[in-house]
């Protein structure tokens, strides 16, 4: 169970470019649920993801993972509970290390790193097996440098890396946004498979309403740093992109009305 309570994040406070990215956001994700998060630019999608990962510190509010208060945990400490795939395929892997070294790094997540050899024969076998699932033939290229792979291949390996060790939540940060449509579909399919296989608690941030409705069990819409729409189950099942768009506009309209009320 992931619980974010009354989260406030302000960037550049007290300056002309002050930005209240999150304004009292509440979100709880039960175990094994796959949540998709949508919202326009600046709605706070990436910020909440970074808050859960520990990369962005909150100005108010708390983050709990399985009843443990992790609000003050830095990224490296939180990594034992949180796995993530970055938007930029370059960001999630080390290009000058080999594929197997990258996988070995991911296998160290949540464990204590010592002087033992990182790429052992047993581990190589595990890597081979895990990477074979991708169907990209990368199992024969484990000793190749990561930088030789295409963006889509790197993102696929990133997914395998993220799911190598157990986690409490998997964070996907628009992880198909930088890919061409065909590769994006492949990576999404792979995501579905890995999430279902491991019954992973997952939060996927996306720009595409289509993606948000097609994947997972629940869709959350953010606007101006708050959750404005939260649908799951039957209500979500019958939803089309137009419905979502309509609701989105309705929410936005109300916001403007609120502002008018306040100003008046």
């Amino acid at each position, binding site marked *: 169970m992931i619980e974010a309570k009354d989260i406030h994040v302000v960037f550049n406070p007290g300056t002309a470019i002050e930005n209240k990215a999150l304004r009292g956001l509440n979100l709880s994700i039960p175990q094994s649920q796959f949540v998709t998060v949508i919202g326009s630019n600046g709605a706070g999608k990436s910020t909440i993801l970074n808050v859960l990962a520990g990369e962005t510190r909150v100005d108010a509010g708390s983050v709990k993972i399985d009843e443990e208060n992790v609000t003050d945990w830095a990224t490296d400490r939180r990594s034992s509970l949180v796995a993530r795939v*970055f938007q930029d395929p370059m*960001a999630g892997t080390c290009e000058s*290390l080999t594929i197997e070294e990258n996988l070995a*790094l*991911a296998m*160290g*997540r949540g464990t204590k790193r*010592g002087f033992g*050899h990182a790429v052992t024969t047993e581990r190589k076998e595990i890597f081979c097996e895990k990477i074979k699932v991708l169907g990209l033939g990368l199992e024969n290229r484990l000793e190749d440098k990561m930088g030789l792979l295409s963006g889509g291949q790197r993102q696929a390996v990133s997914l395998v890396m993220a799911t190598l060790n157990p986690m409490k939540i998997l964070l996907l940060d628009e992880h198909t946004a930088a890919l061409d449509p065909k590769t994006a579909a492949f990576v999404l399919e792979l995501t579905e498979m890995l999430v279902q296989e491991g019954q992973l608690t997952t939060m996927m941030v996306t720009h595409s309403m289509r993606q948000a409705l097609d994947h997972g069990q629940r869709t959350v819409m953010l606007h101006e740093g708050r959750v404005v729409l939260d649908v799951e189950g039957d209500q979500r099942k019958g939803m089309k992109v137009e419905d979502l768009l309509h609701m989105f506009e309705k929410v936005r309209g109300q916001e403007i009305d609120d502002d008018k009320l306040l100003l008046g």
Partner: protein
Amino acid sequence: MSLIAFLGAIETGLLFGIVALGVFISFRILDFPDLTVDGSLPMGAATSAMLIVNGVNPFVACLCAIIAGAGAGLVTAWLNVRLGILHLLASILTMIALYSVNLRIMGKPNQALLGEETVFTPFEAMIDLPYYWVTPLVLLGIILIILVLLNLFLSSELGLGMRATGVNARMASAQGIKTGKMKMMGIALSNGMVALAGALFAQIQGGADISMGVGVIVVGLAAVILGEATFSTRTIILATVGCVVGSILYRVVVALALNADFIGLQAQDLKLVTAVLVVLAMTLPGARQKMAKRKLVKGALK
């Protein structure tokens, strides 16, 4: 060039191979331009020289030199990681501070080691060869041990974490690597190795001198770059061996240049030649690529 001069060049090349490996860790693995080495080399020399003249076993003296150098590196990394001072500036600050520290260690600008027992003494008795063979052989042994240990470390889980820190710090911390600690550990290791080189240097040339560290960083960098230019960097093992090869190559080339009277170079031109060499080595690969591309474009337009 005489055999003695040639072996002398090899000897210095091997010695500065240790420096090159240290520089490789900071510049290449951690992407941390660290000038502390200009201070930690004489620090290692001063520490070991003072201990040896006070009757301490030379091997223990070398160990103390390593610890002193590692401490200096730790200060630089701490200034950067914990206090947020720019890495280059942090290292310059430590380097300047070490000048005073080194003077304090010796109590004077230099310390002679003539006639004292050094780490080479027992081997001189053991190996039945002239002195100019013994030192390079012992150094070769030392550098082989360092290479093996370093490569074991760099392919360990901890070492992999250090390499990831230098390449992609954001990804590293997302994988649970404490990037700040990694930097501190790496810079300490780097300067510990450079200080060891300083300690050995003092014992070879018969004394420590406050100014022996001037330009060490450039010499180390020259060796690293020369190694990359002449040797494959495909794997970490090859890259580290390349540093040592680069260092030896650099010394041999310099010795040849100084020996060739027709060029008119003298010993005092060494630092200038080194700086020019580094500039060339850093810009030539880029220029060559541009030329090659221009040729390809021309071919495509035809």
